[in-house]
């Protein structure tokens, strides 16, 4: 979005210097047509010089007396688009129009009006949609971060009602850029629309084998499971917890794996899982990371929130505060101020009204907790 990368951003991808466009074959093979009176440059003829287009009056762009952000188009570019505008104005539905859209797309594949017009022609002229799939495949390979081309593909797949090439095609695009947001978006649409869940978990696992830090793949894992078995069956949840821990051991400093683990558990409350704390504390020695420590903070916070007498609130709070200070001072110093803010918030919400420093001694067993000051 740019993209952006990808995102964020309006109708085009966020790419700055635009992608270099490959040279298209604008030059006709063979000899120049000597019968034309008009000048011919190496075989290419402007539309304005083509006999078969003489009936159409080109329509120039008109930015008025003070154009802004004017793009300095070449003669050739202007010529093609002047004729595109003419076709558009007359709403002409013909083969010559269809052919011209391809040239206009070649010059600027981000022009959504050209694509829309091409779709109208595809239907009006009853064009071969399988041919169109071949065409769009090539364009996407060349410009995989363009919004219009993916939308066009989706439309054609819908018309054909045939997604049979999609998963393989998307996999091919992902093999070049495993995090392409457009590709993943298209993939999720195809799978949901045509019920193609089978085999997707296996595909995700392959990608995670290749790169355990691929956040898109982790996201897809969650997508597949939540739409198929869901995380409700205890054996599924347990399997996924163990899977996450296994991946964490392979690459401890991996935010994606920790986000996944926390994500699948947080709905029921982290502190509701017996044995979880122990498992994570066990990881701490060899596989520590700011994410592990953050997980523990969240665990303790959930325990404080739940407040079900299984825990000593003061001790729990102190543990959480200690971790925040450890993160601030040593383990995640870029977020020093943030972790201190987290500590203050916890203190304010669950603290006993007196300032409790992390290094203070444990309260005697007979000490009663005061009601935490509410926030």
């Amino acid at each position: 979005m740019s993209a952006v990368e990808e995102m964020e951003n309006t109708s085009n991808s966020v790419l700055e210097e635009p992608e270099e466009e490959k040279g298209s074959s604008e030059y006709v093979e063979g000899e120049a047509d000597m019968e034309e009176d008009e000048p011919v440059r190496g075989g290419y003829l402007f539309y304005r010089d083509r006999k078969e287009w003489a009936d159409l009056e080109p329509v120039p762009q008109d930015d008025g007396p003070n154009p802004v952000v004017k793009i300095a188009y070449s003669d050739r570019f202007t010529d093609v688009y002047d004729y595109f505008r003419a076709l558009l104005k007359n709403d002409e539905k013909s083969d010559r129009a269809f052919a011209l859209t391809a040239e206009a797309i070649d010059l600027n594949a981000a022009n959504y009006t050209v694509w829309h017009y091409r779709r109208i022609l595809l239907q009006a002229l009853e064009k071969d949609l399988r041919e169109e799939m071949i065409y769009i495949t090539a364009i996407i390979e060349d410009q995989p971060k363009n919004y219009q081309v993916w939308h066009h593909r989706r439309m054609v797949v819908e018309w054909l009602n045939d997604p049979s090439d999609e998963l393989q095609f998307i996999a091919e695009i992902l093999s070049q850029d495993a995090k392409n947001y457009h590709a993943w978006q298209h993939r999720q649409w195809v799978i949901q629309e045509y019920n193609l869940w089978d085999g997707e978990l296996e595909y995700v696992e392959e990608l995670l084998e290749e790169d355990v830090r691929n956040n898109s793949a982790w996201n897809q894992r969650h997508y597949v499971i939540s739409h198929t078995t869901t995380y409700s069956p205890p054996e599924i949840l347990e399997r996924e917890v163990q899977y996450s821990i296994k991946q964490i051991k392979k690459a401890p400093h991996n935010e994606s794996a920790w986000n996944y683990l926390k994500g699948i558990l947080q709905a029921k409350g982290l502190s509701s899982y017996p044995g979880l704390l122990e498992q994570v504390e066990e990881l701490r020695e060899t596989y520590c990371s700011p994410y592990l420590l953050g997980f523990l903070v969240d665990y303790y916070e959930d325990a404080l929130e739940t407040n079900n007498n299984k825990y000593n609130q003061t001790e729990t709070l102190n543990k959480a505060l200690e971790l925040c200070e450890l993160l601030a001072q040593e383990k995640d110093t870029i977020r020093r101020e943030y972790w201190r803010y987290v500590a203050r918030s916890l203190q304010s919400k669950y603290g006993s009204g007196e300032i409790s420093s992390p290094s203070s001694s444990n309260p005697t067993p007979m000490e009663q907790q005061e009601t935490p000051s509410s926030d």
Partner: protein
Amino acid sequence: MSNVFFHPKDLHKLETKLQEKQAKEEEESERLKKQIYFLKDRHVRFFQRCLQVLPERYSSYETSRLTIVFFALSGLDVLDALEVVDKPSLIEWIYSLQVVPTEDQSNLGRCGFRGSSHIGVPYSTSKGPGSPHPYDSGHVAMTYTGLACLIILGDDLSRVNKEACLAGLKALQLEDGSFYSVPEGSENDMRFVYCAACICYMLDDWSGMDCMKAIDYIRKSMSYDNGIGQGAGLESHGGSTFCAIATLCLMGKLEDKFSERELNRIRRWCILRQQNGFHGRPNKPVDTCYSFWVGATLELLDVFQYTHFEKNRNYILSTQDSLVGGFAKWPDSHPGKITAPVCVCSHEYI
């Protein structure tokens, strides 16, 4: 206290050495300055040039030229340098991009602003009814940036046909609460939800969208990792997170529709994006534009103050192009039109 007497010859040697040392230090200081200091004048000139002519290799921006104007004007505005532009001319040009109702009002659902003159309708600065054209319609991001530009330029929006814009906007919303960009159909995602909210906010009229449905779309787009994706099930992303949070803020519904616990979780997701600068998704490389998208989100959530200002600033300045002006995605690459103003904005935060 010693009495120091110098022989003239030694004095001269000392002076020369001192001069050489000074010259070297000045050179080094100049070099560092380019990295350390924000080169305001260069950026102002960069934005001015953007507003003039772009080379053909920028052709993919044709249909969104108005957004380029928005980025340039925003940048100049943040730098307090709007006096360099010809406001009246710009205002006329922007109004020439409005799709106004035709005589018979049959195109109301297509009204709004165009991104440029690429369709080929005759130039007309929003005076009188529109000329009918089978394919002329507005684009939600252009309507948003068009209105924003007019406001930046001090225009009173008196030539904006508000009812038509709102009708055009209504036509773009889908059942799930998200928006198309154009009435002919397009992809739909969080970007256009944000554009729609901006339009309603600027026109001070929320009848242009079903807020409840939009909010529902936003909530459904929250990921298991507490960031927000472009739509339900999609990977959480800095850009879509900004669009979602900013939309709720514009509606005045942020604290209403997300619990404090959820907001804290979103804060955590966002603040983890800082690496030195910011990235847009876990395990992706940083990109200057996210200093804005994520930085702005953090500010809306009241926790930008807890980010590491210096690391962010140093990163942004390392992408600064001291020759041409503007900022690049990464150090040592070419400055971008979109990245630049967003960096200026995020730099201004700090």
